[in-house]
């Protein structure tokens, strides 16, 4: 016999609107073992929590059922509540009558009836619950940050400043990310390099940060508090311990590769650093463009290197780091606009995408900061086309959020650096940020021509060969415009990194419809993920600007810190165990477990489960033909009883 208390939450009108809550409480009181049942306006409020705790004492409750919102929302809250009242936290059952009931029906009859069935199921289940003891584990105090853009840099610095050891993994040969490609930042127009390079340098100098550039995470094992992460160091063919960054090699190199950093606008050497302020200031060799790797001879770099740092035999290496928490901050790609043939990217040399234009403005860029077209001429007329692939059902439904603002920035810089006429073809101007609307106003006054109408087509001019024509409807006058320009700048959708699916798989992250990493809760846990101990920051979560990215980086650092700051932490107790008396030795559990938690004890002829490795999925329990494996908190009896309760009404 157990003593169950049932607490039905109104959630204001959220639940009470489509479930007769007092009737539900009265019904609950009639169910077996229920000794008290109440309804209350907001069960998660302090008075609500106190009511539960009072009743636990007064009625000597040994099971608590909270009939309210989703367990994903407040299970943790209420577990604390009952634990503080002296009850084991696993004796709580949540009945989800909000997300999966009151919000998905308008019919109060239907709502009340289903709520009763759900509650009945919960009572049946609750009667079979057992108190469980959480496992306490040691926590590794170090943190891994994946991605060396502004988000990763900021998070790493924050953590390192608290004394935390940080591993910062970056797949490129330098940290800095997209922000290092920019020239100015909106709306203040401060120079991107001026605010970023000191931070890059701080990373390099910080004794608590181990920077792992040209590296990728290849394997993730373990769990919150104790991750074992395998990192691949790609072959650089340059021994960075020996290299003294004299860069004599890069001068002599005859190889020619395409500069990724300059978005393919220029060539670079085969041995190179991506840009002058790169961190670390040490070159790598690109196999694809290296004369030696292509033709088997050259080695000019090796000849000029006084440090003997060039090593053509270098192989990729793998190392493992142990950390307690992980921050994923892997940023974004721009959508490939070639499939949108109407805009002529890749077809007309005068059509650019936004990152290319960033490089044109940049004094370290291919043109030394002069805005010139591919033929070297200065454009006299420029069109900026918003929402290319963004807000578009055929490509990416989301708004890429930063394009309106960087287009304004571009317009300003075009006005500053050229005498060109500048047109903005937009659908809606979105300038919702501090100082953004003011920046928009400023650009209007700078005489940028704003055309409300999405660019429909870019074509070449028949009258003036070499010029481009942008066709669009000015929706404010209903006039069809043909605007002759020299340069077209496309603002493509911001999309997840091409390899983000692989990363999601490694860290067990969910991705949203567009492929961005999903947060645990859009409002209350925007940086946490479904994997305990793994946090996300920056554009890998969704498009955002630098201020928001930096804010998230601080947040993610704080989140990671809440884990690694403690020596020990509690782990969910919902692991599996073997009842040796029932084990028939079939070893199915050993065969299926993704974490190798079960093993077969040859002497005793039974399976055993290492609970430290078990993540509680319950797969072993379902493949166990003799039900010898008990999936704690989701035992066969508990599930069957819940089913029985649910089907009774």
């Amino acid at each position: 016999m157990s003593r169950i208390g049932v607490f039905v939450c109104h959630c204001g009108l959220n639940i009470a609107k489509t479930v007769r809550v007092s009737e539900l409480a009265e019904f609950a009181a009639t169910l077996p073992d229920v000794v008290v049942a109440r309804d209350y306006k907001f069960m998660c409020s302090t008075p609500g929590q106190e009511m539960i705790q009072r009743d636990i004492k007064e009625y000597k409750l040994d099971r608590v059922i909270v009939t309210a919102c989703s367990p994903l929302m407040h299970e943790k809250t209420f577990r604390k509540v009952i634990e503080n009242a002296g009850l084991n936290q696993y004796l709580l059952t949540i009945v989800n009558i909000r997300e999966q009931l009151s919000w998905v029906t308008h019919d109060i009859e239907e709502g009340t009836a289903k709520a009763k069935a759900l509650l009945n199921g919960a009572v049946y289940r609750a009667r079979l619950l057992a108190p469980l003891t959480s496992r306490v584990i040691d926590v590794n105090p170090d943190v891994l940050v994946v991605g060396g853009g502004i988000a990763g840099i900021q998070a790493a610095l924050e953590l390192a400043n608290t004394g935390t050891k940080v591993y910062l993994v970056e797949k490129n040969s330098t940290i800095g990310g997209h922000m290092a490609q920019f020239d100015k930042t909106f709306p203040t127009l401060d120079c991107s390099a001026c605010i970023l390079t000191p931070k890059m340098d701080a990373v390099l100098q910080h004794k608590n940060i181990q920077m792992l550039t040209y590296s990728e995470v290849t394997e993730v094992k373990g769990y919150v508090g104790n991750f074992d992460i395998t990192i691949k160091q790609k072959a650089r063919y340059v021994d960075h311990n020996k290299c003294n960054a004299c860069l004599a090699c890069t001068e002599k190199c005859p190889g020619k590769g395409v500069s990724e950093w300059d978005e393919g606008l220029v060539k670079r050497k085969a041995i190179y650093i991506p840009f002058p302020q790169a961190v670390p200031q040490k070159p790598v060799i690109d196999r694809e463009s290296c004369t030696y790797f292509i033709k088997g001879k050259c080695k000019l770099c090796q000849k000029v290197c006084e440090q003997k740092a060039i090593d053509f035999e270098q192989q990729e290496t793998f190392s493992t780091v142990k950390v307690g928490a992980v921050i994923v901050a892997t940023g974004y790609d721009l959508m490939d606009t070639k499939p949108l043939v109407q805009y002529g990217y890749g077809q007309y040399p005068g059509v650019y995408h936004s990152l290319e234009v960033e490089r044109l403005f940049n004094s370290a860029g291919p043109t030394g900061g002069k805005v010139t077209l591919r033929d070297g001429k200065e454009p006299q007329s420029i069109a900026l086309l918003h929402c290319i692939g963004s807000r578009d059902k055929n490509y990416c439904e989301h708004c890429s959020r930063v394009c309106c603002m960087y287009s304004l920035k571009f317009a300003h810089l075009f006005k500053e650096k050229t005498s060109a006429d500048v047109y903005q073809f937009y659908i809606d101007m979105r300038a919702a940020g501090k100082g953004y609307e003011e920046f928009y106003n400023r650009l209007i006054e700078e005489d940028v021509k704003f055309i409300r109408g999405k660019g429909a087509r870019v074509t070449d001019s028949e009258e003036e060969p070499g010029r481009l024509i942008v066709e669009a409807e000015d929706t404010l006058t209903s006039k069809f415009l043909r605007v002759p320009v020299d340069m077209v700048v496309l603002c493509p959708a911001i999309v997840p990194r091409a390899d983000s699916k692989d990363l999601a798989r490694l860290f067990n992250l969910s991705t949203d419809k567009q492929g961005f990493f999903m947060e645990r809760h859009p409002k209350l846990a925007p940086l946490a993920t479904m994997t305990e101990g793994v946090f996300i920051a920056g554009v890998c979560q969704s498009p955002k600007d630098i201020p928001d990215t930096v804010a998230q980086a601080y947040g993610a650092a704080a989140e990671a810190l809440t884990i690694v700051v403690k020596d020990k932490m509690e782990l969910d107790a919902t692991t599996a165990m073997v009842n040796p008396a029932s084990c028939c030795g079939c070893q199915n559990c050993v065969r299926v477990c993704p974490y190798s938690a079960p093993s077969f004890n040859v002497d005793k002829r039974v399976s055993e489960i290492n609970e430290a490795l078990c993540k509680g999925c319950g797969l072993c329990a379902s493949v166990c033909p003799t039900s010898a494996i008990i999936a704690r908190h989701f035992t066969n009896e508990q599930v069957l009883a819940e089913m029985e309760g649910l089907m009774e009404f």
Partner: protein
Amino acid sequence: MSQAVTPYLEMSQAIMDAGGEALKKCYQCGTCSGTCPWTPITHFNIRKLVRYGQLGLDGIEDFMWGCSTCKFCVDRCPRGVELIDVVMAIRNVYSGGGMLPQSLRAFVGSMSARGNPWSGDQGSRNDWTKEKYPLFSEDKEYLFWTCCTVCYDPRNVKLAKAAAEVLNQTGISWGLPTTDVNCCGESLKKVGDLELFERLKNNNLNFFTSSGVSKIITVSPHCLASFKKDYGQDYEVLHLSKLIDKKIKEGKLIPKKDFGGAKVTYHDPCYLGRHSGVYDAPRDVLKSIPGLEFVEMKRSREQSMCCGGGGGGLWMEKLKGERLSDLRIEEALSTGASILATSCPYCITMFEDSIRTLNADDKISVKDVTELVLESLEISIDEPVVDACSV
């Protein structure tokens, strides 16, 4: 008169009820109107039409008929608005209110009275055959669905004959519909007369069912699209160009005649291309004909321009300077081609008109791909000349 207007949401609702539900999704970005071939040359504005529809505003009567349903805007729309459905719904609501323009009244009247748009006598639908070709019966594999336009329009009768002769060469068994059938109704539906369309459709479906039709070959892409999308039945429908392409590749049809380097370009009919996704078959056919030099126009395939004949456009008078077909002929001429090939009787009609008004008869001629194939097979469909001489 006051300039102020009030949204008339009942009208908006009526449009949505008539199948224009999609107008809700529009966020007025102007992609459709910026893409629409009519925007630069007429005062028709598809975006504005949707906007007026959203608010139920008056004042679209004079431009709502401009759309030729070429589907370019639908393919581009970032919000997935089915703009053609919106156009049909608006036309349905307005023509229901008796606002059909004069030029379309004859068209709708003929459809209603005679089941075809050309005021032709229903019984004479198959007169062009001179009883040379068989009617469809259960033992035939394919029904060769002759579009009304190829049955009644003198220019397009040549296409009908060419198609029949080519079909005879492919070795398949085929037959013609009886004269009981009527127009597929595709254009009528686009004009918004959904009720009459249903009548025509059901009449045709009766014929298909009662005579055991399962495979249909069409010569007009409009019939093709209509059978596939609007008839809601599981028939195997094939455009003639696809069949010819297949038979050439199988070696059943062998183009022989050498065209001696004549330049040909190909115009994608909207209903064969964007509506039905057939781009390669007619091109492959042209490329298989000896001595034909194939050139592309600037706007081709998915980007192809409309001739203006769809959506009822064929029956509407357009002023000079407001004709897409004129622009298209100019584009064809700029390639240096002497033959403009296409695969749709509407396109043929539109282009032949334009060639006449542009006085370009000596520079370019319009041919259906099927006609070129027949010519390359060295088969003549001309009437015996003997009689003519003897007169």
